[in-house]
C-alpha cells in the first residue's frame, strides 16, 4: 500500500457535507481545508445541493479531477458504499471519520471495510478517528480551527489511538515550540496500524522522531511493532495508557481494544530501546530532546547552574530517574578555574553540579560548558540558565549552542518559558538545542536520551 497520496494529498474529497448542519464534521473539515490549506478540496453529498454558493457533488465519481484522498464522514451503514465508489473512482486512500464500528460492537461492518480495502489495496485511516493533520497542508480534524492550538511544521511524527489525546498533545507541543511533520489519529486502526505508521515515518524525510500514544495492541501486533522499531533508523517514543486496573476498564469501553499486561509492554520497550514516556509531560520532553539528538547517551550528565539550589534540584531529579552525575576530572576543574573571571574564582563550586553563582558572566558559562563537554566522564550537559542575573546576556543561548555544536556532546538547557527570555530560548532552539521550561523538564530530556541509547 502506498500511503503517499493519503498523507500528502494534492486533491481531497470530503464526503458527507451537509446543506443544513453547519457544525457537521464534514462541513468543518471541508471549510477549513477549502479556505486555509493548500490541498484542493471537493464537497460531496449524495443528495447534491448547494452550500455557501458552491455545488455539492453527488458522489466522488462526479468529480472531474483525480482525487488523492477522501474524507468519509457519513453514517456507518453508508460507509461501505462510499468506499466502493472511491475505489471505483481510483481514489488512493481515505480517512474514515465515522464512528459506529468495532467500538460500538459492529465488528462485521468494520471487517467488511477491511476486506474491501485489502482486495483493492486501498489504505484507510480509522474508522472512528480524527484522521490526519499535516501543518500548512491538510487537516481532517472535525474541530473548528479557532478552537484548537496547532503546532507549527516540525519534525515529530505523532500517532494516537485516541483523537482527544492527540489534540490535547498537539496543544502541549505547540506550547513548547515543538513542531510536527504529521499527526495521525488512527482510531479503531482497522487498516492502518501503528506498524504501518512506523514504516511510513521511518522513510519520511520530514520526520526525525516518531511518537505513539498507545492503549493496546491487537493479538501479536506488539511483536510486529517491536520488530519494526528495532530496525527503525529514528528514535521511537511511546506513551502507554491503560496501566492501572481502572485505566484498563476505561480503555475497553473507549476504543474497542484490549489493554495488555503493562509490565510486559514496558519491559519489552526497554529491551528494544523504545523510549517509554511515563507521563504526557515526559512525552513532550522526550519528543523535543530526541528530535535534536537521535543517538542516545549512557546517562552521565554534567550540570552547570548559576545557583546552588537549581543544581541540587536537578541532582535530585537525576537520582530519581537513574541518571548519574559523575565526578569530573581534576584537570577539567583546573582548566575551568584558570579561565573564570577573577571575581568569581573564590565563590564558585566546580564539583558536579557546577555552581557558577549569580555573579558569573557569559564567558564563564561558555568556558565551563566547553571544558565540561571535553571531560570523558560526561556524555551530556545540562545548562540551567536563570537569566535574572545581570552578567547573563541575551546572546547566551546562541553562544552556548555554538559550544554544543563544536564539542559534539548533547546539551539541554533550562530557561524559564517567559516572553521576556524568548531571545535566549530561540538562541538555543533555532540552533537545534532543546530547551525545557523547568529544571525537571531538562532532566526528563536527559532521561529520554538515556532510554533511547543504542542497545
Amino acid at each position, binding site marked *: 500500500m502506498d500511503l503517499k497520496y493519503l498523507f500528502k494529498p494534492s486533491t481531497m474529497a470530503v464526503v458527507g457535507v451537509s446543506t443544513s448542519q453547519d457544525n457537521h464534521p464534514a462541513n468543518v473539515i471541508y471549510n477549513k481545508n477549502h479556505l486555509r490549506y493548500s490541498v484542493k478540496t471537493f464537497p460531496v453529498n449524495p443528495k447534491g445541493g448547494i452550500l455557501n454558493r458552491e455545488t455539492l457533488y453527488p458522489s466522488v465519481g462526479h468529480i472531474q479531477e483525480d482525487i488523492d484522498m477522501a474524507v468519509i464522514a457519513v453514517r456507518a451503514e453508508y460507509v461501505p458504499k462510499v468506499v466502493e465508489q472511491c475505489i471505483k473512482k481510483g481514489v488512493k486512500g481515505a480517512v474514515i471519520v465515522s464512528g459506529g464500528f468495532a467500538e460500538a460492537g459492529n465488528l462485521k461492518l468494520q471487517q467488511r471495510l477491511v476486506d474491501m480495502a485489502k482486495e483493492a489495496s486501498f489504505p484507510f485511516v480509522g474508522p472512528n478517528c480524527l484522521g490526519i493533520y499535516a501543518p500548512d497542508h491538510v487537516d481532517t480534524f472535525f474541530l473548528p480551527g479557532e478552537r484548537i492550538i496547532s503546532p507549527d511544521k516540525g519534525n515529530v511524527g505523532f500517532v494516537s489511538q485516541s483523537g482527544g489525546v492527540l489534540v490535547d498533545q498537539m496543544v502541549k507541543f505547540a506550547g513548547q515550540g515543538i513542531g510536527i511533520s504529521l499527526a495521525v489519529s488512527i482510531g479503531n486502526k482497522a487498516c492502518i496500524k501503528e506498524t504501518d505508521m512506523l514504516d511510513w515515518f521511518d522513510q519520511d524525510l520530514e520526520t526525525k522522531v516518531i511518537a505513539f500514544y498507545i492503549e493496546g495492541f491487537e493479538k501479536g501486533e506488539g511483536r510486529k511493532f517491536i520488530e519494526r522499531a528495532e530496525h527503525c533508523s529514528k528514535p521511537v517514543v511511546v506513551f502507554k495508557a491503560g496501566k492501572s486496573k481502572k485505566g484498563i476498564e476505561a480503555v475497553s469501553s473507549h476504543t474497542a481494544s484490549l489493554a495488555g499486561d503493562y509490565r510486559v509492554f514496558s519491559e*519489552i520497550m526497554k529491551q528494544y530501546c523504545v523510549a517509554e514516556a511515563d507521563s504526557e509531560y515526559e512525552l513532550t520532553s522526550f519528543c523535543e530532546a530526541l528530535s535534536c539528538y537521535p543517538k542516545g547517551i549512557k546517562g552521565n550528565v554534567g550540570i552547570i547552574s548559576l545557583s546552588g539550589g537549581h543544581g541540587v534540584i536537578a541532582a535530585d531529579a537525576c537520582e530519581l530517574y537513574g541518571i548519574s552525575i559523575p565526578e569530573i576530572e581534576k584537570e577539567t576543574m583546573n582548566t575551568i578555574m584558570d579561565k573564570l573571571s577573577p571575581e568569581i574564582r573564590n565563590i564558585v563550586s566546580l564539583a558536579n553540579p557546577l555552581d557558577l553563582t549569580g555573579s558569573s558572566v557569559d564567558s564563564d558559562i561558555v568556558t565551563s560548558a566547553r571544558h565540561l563537554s571535553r571531560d570523558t566522564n560526561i556524555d551530556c550537559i545540562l545548562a540551567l540558565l536563570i537569566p535574572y542575573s545581570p552578567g547573563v546576556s541575551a546572546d547566551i543561548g546562541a553562544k552556548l549552542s555554538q559550544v554544543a555544536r563544536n564539542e559534539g556532546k548533547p546539551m539541554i538547557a533550562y530557561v524559564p518559558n517567559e516572553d521576556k527570555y524568548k531571545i535566549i530560548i530561540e538562541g538555543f532552539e533555532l540552533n537545534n538545542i532543546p530547551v525545557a521550561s523547568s529544571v525537571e523538564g531538562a532532566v526528563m530530556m536527559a532521561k529520554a536520551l538515556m532510554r533511547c541509547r543504542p542497545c
Partner: protein
Amino acid sequence: MLKKDSKKILEKSKSLGWVLEPDAKALMKLQGLDIPDFILTNSFEAADLFLKACDGPVVAKAVSKKILHKTEHNAVVTGIFSSDHLKIEMARLQKLDGCENILVEKMVKGLEIIIGAKNDFQFGPVIVFGIGGTSVEIYNDTAIRMAPIKPGDVFSMKESLKARQIITGYRGKAGVNMEILTHLMVNFSNLIMELENDIESVDLNPVICTKDRCVIADARIILNCNEGC
C-alpha cells in the same frame, strides 16, 4: 525442531490442560537442561535404595492430575534424610487426592530463582526471570524480555533486579554461575519459541543455582486450551 519424544509428552498432556511435573522435567531434559537425579515410584523399597545411593537428603512429591499447585496441598516434602521419615511421608503423600506416583529427587541446595515464560496476547512468548520460591508474588522482583532472548538480555535482566547482588554474590557468599544460567535461559527461550502454539505459560520454579549448576527443581507447563484440551 521439537523432538519426537517432546511432541509425545505434549500430546498426552493435552486432555489434562497442563503437563505433570515428571513429564515437564523430561521435556526440559530433552532440551538439554539440568534436572535433579530422581526416581518415580510407588515402592518404598525402591525409594529407600535411591535415598541411600544419594548420599544426602531427598525431596518427595506427590504426582497427581488433581494437584496443580503442590505447596497448597502439602504435596512436597523437602529435607528427607532417613528411611523412617521417607516411609511416613510416602504413605501420607500416596493418600493425597489422585496421587499416582511419588517423585523422589536428590535435593539440591542453592539460590532459588524463577525462570518462566508466558504467551502474551500482544507480544507472543516472553521470558520472566527473578528471585524464586513460594513467595515470588510477594517480592515480585522480576525482569521480562521478549523471546527469543540473547545472552546480553540475561545480563541486563539480572542487572535490573533489586536482588542482583544476591545473584552475583555478596558478603563472601558465592554467586550464581552466570555462564550456566545464561546457557539455561537462552536454551529455555529457544524451547519456548518452539512451543509457542502449545503453551499458555511455564514456571520453572524454583531453579536452584550454585556456582557450579542451575538445576530445575520444579516445572509446570500450562497448555494453551484454545486449541482444545
